[in-house]
């Protein structure tokens, strides 16, 4: 009997400590920091330059934070954790070349879109893969949780290899471990610029739009971000940022 009371006491003690910790989160002061969750392995949208995270998303968020009079703090994490962090309140905004999809909309709220993108296929020079239709039965590398990952699930008989990082999928492709990589168009260009013997197929098989994500129901922040985005669009800052990272073809 004594043992049981002791055990109960221990469990209760742990629960109390946990609930205290939960309180600690709730009682925060008025925020001046804007925490942005991203996956800084996705050039040109976000990547490391020295020890600083730069890229289109990072620059846009810097401008947005400036508009809001807040200080931007960037948290780098795995791509599949970005939306979880936003939803769970670990970060205020997700800015990680996030495509607006119906599934994601169920879990977070998206801002107005700020960029267009497509998914493309990267293959080795001289590969027999010519487009989306010839992917059937091949092994396809993707980055976990990206729209590319979700699209290729429908490819018949294909083996999908989900890497944590986009460039690891590209590396596996150059080493002949997989037949193709499906990824967003701009990172694809950045990746093949650094590797030899790879080509991007012309066929772009999706049209997507990127937006910023905030926690579901956080309309105050969403409104502020949309206002800031609109302002940046109107005064040309947005185009400037994009032009800085993506050279016109």
């Amino acid at each position, binding site marked *: 009997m004594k043992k049981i009371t002791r055990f109960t006491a221990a469990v209760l003690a742990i629960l109390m400590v946990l609930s205290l910790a939960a309180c600690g989160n709730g009682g925060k002061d008025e925020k001046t920091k804007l925490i942005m969750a991203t996956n800084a392995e996705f050039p040109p949208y976000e990547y490391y330059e020295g020890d600083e995270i730069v890229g289109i998303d990072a620059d846009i968020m810097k401008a947005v934070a400036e508009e809001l009079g807040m200080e931007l703090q960037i948290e780098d994490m795995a791509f599949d954790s970005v939306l979880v962090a936003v939803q769970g309140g670990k970060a205020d905004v997700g800015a990680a070349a996030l495509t607006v999809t119906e599934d994601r909309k169920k879990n977070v709220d998206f801002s107005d879109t700020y960029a267009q993108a497509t998914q493309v296929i990267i293959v080795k020079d001289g590969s027999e893969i010519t487009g989306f239709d010839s992917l059937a039965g091949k092994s396809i590398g993707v980055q976990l949780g990206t729209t590319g990952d979700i699209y290729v699930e429908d490819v018949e008989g294909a083996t999908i290899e989900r*890497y944590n990082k986009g460039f690891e999928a590209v590396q596996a492709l150059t080493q002949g471990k997989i037949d193709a990589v499906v990824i967003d168009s701009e990172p694809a260009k950045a990746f093949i610029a650094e590797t030899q013997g790879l080509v991007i197929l012309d066929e772009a098989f999706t049209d997507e739009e990127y937006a910023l994500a905030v926690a579901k129901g956080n309309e105050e922040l969403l409104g502020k971000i949309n206002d800031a985005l609109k302002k940046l669009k109107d005064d040309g800052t947005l185009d400037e940022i994009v032009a800085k990272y993506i050279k016109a073809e």
Partner: protein
Amino acid sequence: MQAWVAEKWTWFSGQIYDNFIKDDRYLYITNGLKATLVITFSAVILGIVIGFLIATIRSTYDKTGKLKFANAICSIYLTVIRGTPVVVQLLIIYFVIFGSVNISKIIVAIIAFGINSGAYVAEIFRSGIMSIDEGQFEAGRSLGFSYVQTMRYIVMPQAFKNVLPALGNEFIVLLKETSVAGYIALQDLAKGGDIIRSRTFSAFFPLITVAIIYLIMVIIFSRLVKLLERRLRKSDR
């Protein structure tokens, strides 16, 4: 109160449906579990083989001064493997050593974790061999046993019994360590949970489920090791 419970229940069952039932997502967990078990068991066997060989070489050198060169190689292996993180070793084996070969990732993982575990098992075995009193060894030799026979019939059986708890522990450590296999896009149990998480954006259920499955496996295997220990200890009385 009732409304509150009903509301929580709706949320709970909705989460269960989204995370495990929709699109057959539970398959990520079950297939991942299979991969984790295959990798762990094969790697443990490989690790025991490697560890046994190395421990034999090292203790032969310690006891007789023979096999100097082999001993030096073993020392280097132990230093390198125990001095680098297993994730880095895994990535090196996948992207560098098998860089230009198209090889099954399960095999890569088994090799990586087996080689890694071998280094730790080697030291476990060696400590077991060293723990046997020198007198046992001398007694064997004076009975006319050769070095190999003494090791095989007198030292090793006692050593094995001594190291069994440590060996069981190594198995448990390895089981959990294989959770980094996802780094090479291998779909093991932890990666299975990650894939679900990337689809449903819910942190709680995928992570807790994966954690509970690992925990249950560890509890089962700890019990089995304990049973084996008890059987072997019967001869002590």
